[in-house]
């Protein structure tokens, strides 16, 4: 055996010399792909005063079901007081290849940060 297997990574079938003696065909439809319910991203406000935070995703047929599923899946331990869901296909993301042009310019604008300003210690509440 030359392949290294890890926890949560048990290799693919067909490798190795032992074969299962109970393999049988299971009814996988040939047109199997594309039946998943739409994918939704879930955002949860964990308590009043905080922003909604991305928690993960799930499948649901519509917004209402997505909110309910989010309640069942992501707030089993009282993690939230408010839920947003948005269908994943509606999320537009910036291109990571452009990260340099988008974010690096902010690097040399130290004057945007409060610590840039050297003020006397006597000055309070600023």
């Amino acid at each position, binding site marked *: 055996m030359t392949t290294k297997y890890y926890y949560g990574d048990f290799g693919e079938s067909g490798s190795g010399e032992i074969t299962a003696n109970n393999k049988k065909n299971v009814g996988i439809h040939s047109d199997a792909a594309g039946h998943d*319910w739409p994918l939704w991203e879930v955002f949860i406000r964990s308590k009043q005063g905080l922003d909604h935070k991305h928690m993960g995703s*799930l*499948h*649901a047929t519509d917004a*209402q*079901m997505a909110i*309910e*599923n989010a309640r*069942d*899946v992501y707030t*089993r331990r009282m993690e939230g007081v408010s839920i947003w869901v948005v269908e994943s296909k509606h999320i537009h993301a910036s291109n990571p290849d452009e990260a340099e042009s988008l974010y690096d310019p902010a690097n040399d604008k130290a004057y945007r940060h409060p610590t840039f300003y050297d003020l006397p210690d006597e000055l309070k509440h600023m």
Partner: protein
Amino acid sequence: MKKDLISYTIHLADSALILGHRNSEWCGHGPVLEQDIAITNISLDLIGQARNFYQYAAQLTGNNTTEDTLAYLRDAREFKNCLLTELPNGDWAVTVLRQFFFSAYQYLLYQQLQHSSDTQLAAIAEKSLKEVTYHLRWSSEWVIRLGDGTSESRQRILNAIEDLWMFTGELFKPADYEIEATAKGFGVNAELLKNDWLQNIKAIFEEATLPVPDENAWMQTGGKTGSHTEHLGFILADMQFLQRTYPGCEW
């Protein structure tokens, strides 16, 4: 007084436990992961309600009675759950319809019970009502979805109505201890819930484009007084097996 209060409380507990137990059979076998989790949540809520009622009944009973002696050491004839709750899960249509019928009833029941003269029952009802409100919403949506979904889902929910309808009448036919409970002010008059329940069923069925069965159809009864279907014995055989095989043990 106390005897009726105990019987009434155990009746509430039994129905919640048996339906919770049935729903828990779905855990790991649901039609889609999100709904596996949802039905399991409902199961946990119901078992939680049952425990609250049993603990109260045990306290009233005394003699070292506990929630577990009540759940695990009574035989089928002593169980007072409604027949509807013990019916097999069937397919998803049967399960969500059974939940819908029962949640719609529990919703009205707990709404009243939270004003019970018995502060314990009132408190448990108030807490449980929040859970049941969600169960009702969840199960209503599924009934609508299946009724107005595909032709297969429609046929399945029609079959489920056919199978379950005759078990709904019992919900509103009070047993003696319920009549006493109502008279003494700590229980809810189940008969008076029927109209609102029917209105709710009709509204949801209409949205689901489903026909409402005859409300005067012959109804099965007996669960509340210990005359059950054959299914309950098997539920208990499963549930009570360890407590029965190894009596007197801590677990």
